[in-house]
C-alpha cells in the first residue's frame, strides 16, 4: 500500500446518499483475477449508456472534474457488497480521498487497506463544499498528520480518524507483516 501523508486535489461532488458498491463497480467487472485496471469501470452504468457512450447528465463526465482526486458523497457511502473492487476502482481512477457524512463499515475498512483516506465530515460542512464544487470548482488539501481539510483560503476543518488507521496510512504499512510480529501469540492461542 502506498503511504499517504498529505493530498491536494480537485473535488468531484457526488451528491447522492447510499451509494452502493454495485454502482461503484458493477458485477460484470468482478471476474478479473488482478487488482489493477478497474478504474475504467468506475460508476460504469452512471457514466455510460447501454451503447457505451458517456452520459451527459452524470457529473463525473463533465470536463471540469476530469482530474478530480477527492470524492464528496452523501450518507452511507459504499454500502452493500464487500467487494474490494470498489476501492480498487476508485483508486485506479485517481481518487485518494473520500469525504462523506458516513461510510458503510466494510467499505471503510477496504478503503483504508488501499491507501484511500475515508474522511467522515458533518453534513453541514459537506453541503457547503458540495455546493461550491457543483457551482464552480473546489480544491482541498488533506493533511492526515494534523487531521485537517483546508480549502484554498486556508480555512482548516478538523476530522477524526482512529490513530491506528492513521499511522498505517501515513506509513503505508503492510498489515500482515505487522500481525506476524504477534505470531507467537497466535500460536499460543491455537495451542490452548
Amino acid at each position, binding site marked *: 500500500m502506498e503511504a499517504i501523508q498529505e493530498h491536494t486535489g480537485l473535488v468531484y461532488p457526488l451528491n447522492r*446518499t447510499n451509494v452502493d458498491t454495485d454502482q461503484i463497480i458493477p458485477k460484470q467487472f468482478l471476474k478479473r*483475477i488482478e487488482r489493477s485496471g478497474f478504474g475504467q469501470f468506475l460508476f460504469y452504468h452512471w457514466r455510460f449508456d*447501454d451503447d457505451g457512450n458517456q452520459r451527459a447528465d452524470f457529473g463525473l463526465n463533465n470536463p471540469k472534474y476530469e482530474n478530480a482526486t477527492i470524492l464528496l458523497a452523501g450518507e452511507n457511502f459504499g454500502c452493500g457488497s464487500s467487494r*474490494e473492487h470498489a476501492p480498487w476502482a476508485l483508486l485506479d481512477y485517481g481518487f485518494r480521498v473520500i469525504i462523506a457524512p458516513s461510510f*458503510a463499515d466494510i467499505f471503510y475498512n477496504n478503503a483504508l487497506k488501499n491507501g484511500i483516506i475515508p474522511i467522515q465530515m458533518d453534513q453541514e460542512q459537506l453541503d457547503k463544499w458540495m455546493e461550491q464544487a457543483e457551482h464552480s470548482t473546489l480544491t482541498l488539501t488533506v493533511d492526515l498528520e494534523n487531521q485537517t481539510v483546508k480549502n484554498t483560503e486556508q480555512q482548516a476543518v478538523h476530522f477524526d480518524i482512529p490513530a491506528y488507521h492513521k499511522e498505517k496510512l501515513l506509513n503505508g504499512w503492510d498489515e500482515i507483516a505487522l500481525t506476524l510480529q*504477534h505470531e507467537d501469540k497466535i500460536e499460543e*492461542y*491455537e495451542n490452548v
Partner: protein
Amino acid sequence: MVQPKTIIEKIWEKHVVHEEEGKPDLLYIDLHLVHEVTSPQAFEGLRMNNRKVRRPDLTYATMDHNVPTKNRDVIKDQVSQKQMETLKKNCEENGITLADMNNPNQGIVHVIGPELGLTQPGKTIVCGDSHTSTHGAFGALAFGIGTSEVEHVLATQSLWQDRPKTLNVHVEGGLGTGVTAKDLILAIIAKYGVRFGTGHVIEFTGEAIRNLSMEGRMTVCNMSIEAGARAGLISPDEKTVDYLKGKKHVPEGEAFTELAEQWRELATDEGAVYDKTLTIDADEVEPQVTWGTNPGMGVPVSGRTPGLDEVEDVEGVERALEYMGLEEKQPISSIGIDHVFIGSCTNSRLSDLKKAAAIVQGKQVNENVRAIVVPGSFSTKLQAEKEGLDTIFKQAGFEWREAGCSMCLAMNDDIVPPGGRCASTSNRNFEGRQGNGARTHLVSPEMAAAAAIEGQFVDVRQFAGVLN
C-alpha cells in the same frame, strides 16, 4: 455476582489473541469460507510475499457466484472459467478443501456452511462476502470482509477488529399466517432504514425470533448487512442444537453432548446490557414488497409507493421511482412483473422451496412471466427432488436449475434484461443488480410464487388455503 453478558461479548472475549490500548483487538478466526470472486487477488498477494496459508484446515472453499445453473459442461464465459480455475489451483496449492462445481457439497457458501455443520455456535466466521452475517443464525459471530482481509486471514488466521457496539432488535409477538422471516427483516429495514446497524452487531431476540425455524433465522441474519450492521446473530437454543446434530462436520456422541452444553451457555445472559435496543411487534408485520433501489425502500403489499410530498430525500426517491419505472403513490397491487427468481443465500433452502411449491402446485405461471428456481446447494436440490418439488415447479412452468448465486447478482447467464421487472427472493434491489437496467422487487418465496402465477403482486394470504 458475575456481570451478565451478551453472546456478542462472550464470543469476542474468547477470541482475542492480542489487545493493546488504542488499537483494535486481534481476533482469532475459527472458520474462513472462500469463493472464486473475492479470493484470487488474496492468494496472489500471498504468493508475491512468499507467505503460506496458516490454517488450510480452518478454510473451506466453494464456487457459487459465477457458476452456470444449467449446462455446466460448457462454460461459455472464458473470464468466469479462468476465475474458477484459479480458485481450484489456489486450493490445490494450499491444501484447502474445495467443493467445486461438480462436487456434491457445492452450493452458495452461506447455504453449505450450515448444511455441512461447518457453521457452529460461538465460532468467529468470515468470508469475502457481505452476506456472511447469515451464519449468525447459529449464534456465531460472522461477518463479511474485503479481499485484503481475506489475504490477512489466510496468512494469519486472525483479523484486527474494533470492538463493535451491540444492538438488540427485540421482536415481540408472532408472525401471522403467510408472513415470513423475510417479511419481518424487510419490514424492520423499511422502518429503520439501511444504516441503523452501522458500527453495531445486532442480536435478534424475542418470541417471534425464537419461533422462527433455523432457516427463517438465517434469512433474518442474512439481511442484517442491508441494515448496515457488521453482523447479525441469534443466541443458540434447542433448535440450533437439533439442526446441527448429525451434520457432517459436527462431532458425534459424547463430544456432541459436551459441545451442545457449551453452545447453550453462549446465549445472552438475563439482564445483559446492549448499547441500543429497538422493539418490533411481529403481529403488525404484513407481507412486504420493495418498490425502490435499496432494501429500505419497502412497504406492505397492501401499500403504495411514497409521494414526493411525504419524504425527506426527495431527489433520492424521485431517482429510485424513475429507475423502477413507477409513479409516486402507485399501489403495489398494480405492479406487473415479467420475471420471478426464487433463490439466493437469503431464500433458497428446502423450507423456502417447499413453501413456494405449495403456492404454485397445480397452477400455471402467468404467460408474461419467466420464472426460475435455483436451489441454494446441490444437496438442497437433491432433497427437493426426492420430495418431488422439482416436478411441482416444472409442471407449473418454472425452470429448475443447478445451485449457485445466479440471478441474485447476475454474474452468470441468469440475467434480467434491461427494463425487465423481477419479483425476487434475494437481498438487494440496487440499480442493475439483476442485470443492467433491470428492476428488482424483494419479496418472500411465497410472495414470489404468488406473483409468478398472477403476473403481478398479490397478497399471498389470498392463497391462505394452501399455506400450511
